[in-house]
């Protein structure tokens, strides 16, 4: 697992360094949405039905992550829609 972490960190650094400055704000919201991958853990806890307590904790975590997923992707897309190239010269 350390291997995966090491490699993913390299990938992350390289990929992010290549993102143009132009898009740093959308980048922030996109990584924000991706970090909501925590939903995977939350779903596992909420679905396992170990005890009411853990199910509730899991469900709250699912809701919180889902909020991030939905709002993160939507707002990124909204911002990106605004970026457009110069239209062909009139």
């Amino acid at each position, binding site marked *: 697992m350390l291997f995966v*972490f090491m490699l993913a960190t390299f990938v992350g650094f390289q990929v992010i360094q290549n993102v143009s400055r132009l898009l740093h704000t959308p980048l922030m919201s996109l990584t924000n949405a991706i970090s909501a991958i925590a939903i995977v853990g939350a779903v596992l806890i909420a679905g396992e*039905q170990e005890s009411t307590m853990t199910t509730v904790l899991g469900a709250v975590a699912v809701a919180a992550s*889902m909020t991030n997923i939905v709002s993160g992707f939507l707002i990124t897309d909204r911002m990106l829609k605004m970026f457009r190239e110069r239209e062909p010269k009139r």
Partner: protein
Amino acid sequence: MIHGVTQLTYLAAAALFILSLRWLSHPKTARRGVAAGVGGMSLAIVGTLLAPEIVNYSWIAIAAIVGTLIGIPLSWVPLTAVPQRTALSHAFGGLAAGLVGTAKYMIWFQHGELTRFRTGAIVLEIILGYLTFTGSLMAAGKLQEIVPTRPITYPNQNLVNLTLLAIAVGTGVYLTFHPYTAWAFPVIVFLSLLFGVLLILPIGGADMPTVISLLNSYAGLSAVAMGFVLENKLLITAGALDGSSGLILSIIMCRAMNRSFTNVLFGAFGQVQASAAAVEVKTAKSGTPQDVAELLTTADRVVVVPGYGMAVAQAQHKVRELYDQLTKRGIDVKFAIHPVAGRMPGHMNVLLAEAEIPYDALLEMDDINPDLPQTDVALVVGANDVVNPAARHDKSSPIFGMPIIDVDKAKTIVAIKRSMNPGFAGIDNELYYLDQTMMAFGDAKQVLGDVVKSLTGEGGTH
């Protein structure tokens, strides 16, 4: 623990996340990047739902619906509120990580399945998660100005904070070696929550963007820790992507402001604004919007330098109108974007894109600076620190060494702002007193509107 299909969906999801960020590197492919991100996330969720451990779907469904219902309106916030939204999102992310860690601890505690490795990973996860939770809430509050934005300091603050963190970490280490110490877990949770608040208190509202990026990085790392807890490589990968993104962005911001992390986190920057009053009385020339319009029509090359003031005044659409008027007259108009203009990375780009200014008219600092000596008019719209020449020569200035846009080298300069007040760094700007500078006082939207009006009136077009 995880069966084959789930594993494969996780693999695909991780690849899609990486592609998503790769495609974000250029505006042309960026929206495909969002699609890849959505695809990756959907795969990850579907893959998880297929896992055999999941016996009950109703709670998950309800929670997902609630989350969606909160998420949709959250994505409608105006662009000026994006930093707050991001901070709030980090708070949710941190909360989710913290809760999952807590629940997992409880489950393993019950079943007697806690090992040192598992406990250690959980401790890391909850410290980072809960700290991110309260820290991000505070940051959002400061940005939304619910919490006072000025740095709140008291004696020995750093000592107190670090002691708190040390106790939390110490307890965590103890718990790792004695996983069934029931009292330790809530103590760590409480200390982490508290530390998140105290960490943000002494940081000025204007430093929040850097802090948010750092919190982004923490949120990513807590997902990585969760990945170690659940032995899930997708979580590790996505978390690492997120962690490095946050770290890189905060490094970029710090570097562009010529400050160090320590200075941002412990510097209580923005506290001493009052002391920066001008001592000698200097005079600045000021002009009316009509004067500005006249000056602009005689120019061949114009460089517009937007700053935080444009964002505050929501003046980007007026900037666009001005751009249209000038290019229609054959004047060459470029935009000079400083990396930390505004209050978040890429702030100006998003605003100008919103106003449908083509992104290839936006130039980065290093690309535009060589052109400035050949520029007839540099139009500074609500920017201040990023055009302050003191950064180049005044060793005593707090922004000394920060790279700036060299508008002072342009033939003439027009600066639009409401007053002679300083900007974010709280320091005077000698630019405004130069011979070739004309101030146009007023709200940026108002002033630019008047400029455009007198251009259209005069030109007879429109």
